[in-house]
């Protein structure tokens, strides 16, 4: 077999991903406004969180209403370790991600054995506790004032704080996560997750370690969220507790739902819509944004349970490969 014959099927199979990656990485050549580049960069960090949540909700059928807390752990971990102990930003990012993953494990092991709404409430409570601690532990977090002067990321002496460089590194990481999520869905892990999602007891009796799989994906989603938080603070150089209220967790969940549950591409479309829709709505009144989001969640659940991706489009081929009834993907049994 020639090299070309081997490459062509590969390209065809991953056409959607490759097209998306090329377009995203080429964007800084066409967009020169720092403002829009920044929004694009935040879109990358948001995508990291939403991807994890999309896997948790779509593949394992578990809901988290406290993901803002994991973003907060990454953001504050990076901020504190770099400003107070002058640690290298990459090392700080790694330590924070480990911490977020460990906490997710401790939180997930008991709650994921219970029914769906228990994890939702446990994570909601956890998110609230983290928020309270961020405000109260003034000696560590500076309370409501927040932490300023967080350094930029750098690599081998290169400053990655400028919009273009940051765009490439943030989207680079987001694309790696997207690829990981796409691979995971098509792997043994993804299949066992979907099996436990549809019929947990049947999956267990066929040898899927259901509790372990659920905790595993919860930990992965927490690590994704933490890394996103770290990237975020190294770009805006400032962090305060205001960013991590319940509303943020709910908006993350909305993003997953609007994009489409049970389809990794849903995370991409949802994130793009949720990052750019407020830019448009801002022209009217920013306060209406959350109202729109709340109503959208209800309307989508009733009329379009498969989310934006189920509307069809460019990536329909990628979608059709593992497609089931839309609402059934969201529910167990």
């Amino acid at each position: 077999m020639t090299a070309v014959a081997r490459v062509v099927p590969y390209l065809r199979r991953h056409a959607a991903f490759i097209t998306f990656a090329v377009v995203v990485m080429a964007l800084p050549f066409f967009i020169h406004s720092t403002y829009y580049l920044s929004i694009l960069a935040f879109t990358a960090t948001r995508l990291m969180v939403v991807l994890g949540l999309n896997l948790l909700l779509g593949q394992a059928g578990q809901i988290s209403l406290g993901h803002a807390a994991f973003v907060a752990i990454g953001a504050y971990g990076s901020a504190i370790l770099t400003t107070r102990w002058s640690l290298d930003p990459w090392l700080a990012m790694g330590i924070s991600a480990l911490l977020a993953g460990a906490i997710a494990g401790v939180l997930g092991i008991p709650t994921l054995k219970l029914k769906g709404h228990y994890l939702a409430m446990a994570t909601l409570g956890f998110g609230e506790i983290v928020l309270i601690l961020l405000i109260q532990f003034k000696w560590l977090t500076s309370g409501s004032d927040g932490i300023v002067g967080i350094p930029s990321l750098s690599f081998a002496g290169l400053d990655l704080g400028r919009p273009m460089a940051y765009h490439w590194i943030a989207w680079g990481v987001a694309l790696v996560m997207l690829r990981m999520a796409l691979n995971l869905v098509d792997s043994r892990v993804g299949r066992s997750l979907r099996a436990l999602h549809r019929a947990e007891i049947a999956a267990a009796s066929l040898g899927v370690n259901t509790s372990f799989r659920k905790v595993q994906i919860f930990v992965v989603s927490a690590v994704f969220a933490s890394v996103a938080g770290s990237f975020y603070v190294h770009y805006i150089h400032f962090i305060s507790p205001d960013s991590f209220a319940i509303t943020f967790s709910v908006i993350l969940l909305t993003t997953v739902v609007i994009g489409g549950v049970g389809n990794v591409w849903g995370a991409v479309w949802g994130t793009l819509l949720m990052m750019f829709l407020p830019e448009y709505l801002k022209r009217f009144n920013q306060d209406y944004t959350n109202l729109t989001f709340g109503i959208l969640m209800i309307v989508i659940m009733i009329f379009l349970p498969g989310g934006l991706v189920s509307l069809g489009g460019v990536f329909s081929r990628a979608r059709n490969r593992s497609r089931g009834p839309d609402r059934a993907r969201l529910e167990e049994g």
Partner: protein
Amino acid sequence: MSLDQFLQYVFSGITNGSIYALTALGFTLIYNATDIINFAQGEFVMLGGLTAISLYKWGVPLPVACLGAVVVVALIGVIFELAAIRPLLSAGIMTQIIVTVGASLALRTAAMLIWGREALPLPPLTGDTPIDVLGATILPQTLWVLGATLAIVVALQLFYKRTLTGKAVRACSVNPTAARLMGVSYSRVVLLSFGLSAAIAATGGVLIAPVSFMGYSSGALIGLKGFAACILGGLGNPAGAVAGGLILGILESLTVGFLPIQGSSGYKDAVAFLILLLVLFVKPQGLFGQRTMEKV
């Protein structure tokens, strides 16, 4: 800590605890009828308080304003059920959680647009001359809160045990299919549960508004604590919900009193969630719940 201080904390705990108890009752009503956890429950509490505040401001006499607010919020609960829950009654847990979470975000933002960002006051029902009890003081409003909670618990018991409609609701919570075969209208039971649940939550909001101000964002925390109370008392158990709410309120208040930390009141809200997580870890069926087996 002296006895009067201790009592003071207990009284304040009972006041807040009653509101958690009412919110928890609201959760229980809906959960028993539909297996849904209504994440918008706290927003009904907030809407109750704020509606009463507006009615009062427009010159409606205070007691009428309070009753009016309860009716308005019950209607909102009914509309919510018809518009968002009914189409998804058989859709499954995740869909229902997402819909009620969406509703809570929408209601909270709508309240902010209507009433603004500031928390608003409501005058107490019968003055604010404190009553002296063993060196501690009770506000008359506290008695109203307690009395109303007791009255609602008794009325609910009578409704469930003595009336035909109440028996129909109980039948549905045991086995909706069998109840339907016996001629009970399941959809009407669900509608009734949402209306009642919203009314009870609103009562809590109306009663607590004079004690602690009511703002658009007050509902989220109350809702969460109400749910913590449910879990503490055993999800689905009305008596457990009320007991859970009172225990939670008292524990919360005593924590503020006993914790030897400066500004410990900032940690007050964390108590409920620590208890929530602890119960989920150690005894997820709640203090008064029994272990159940799930049939395949």
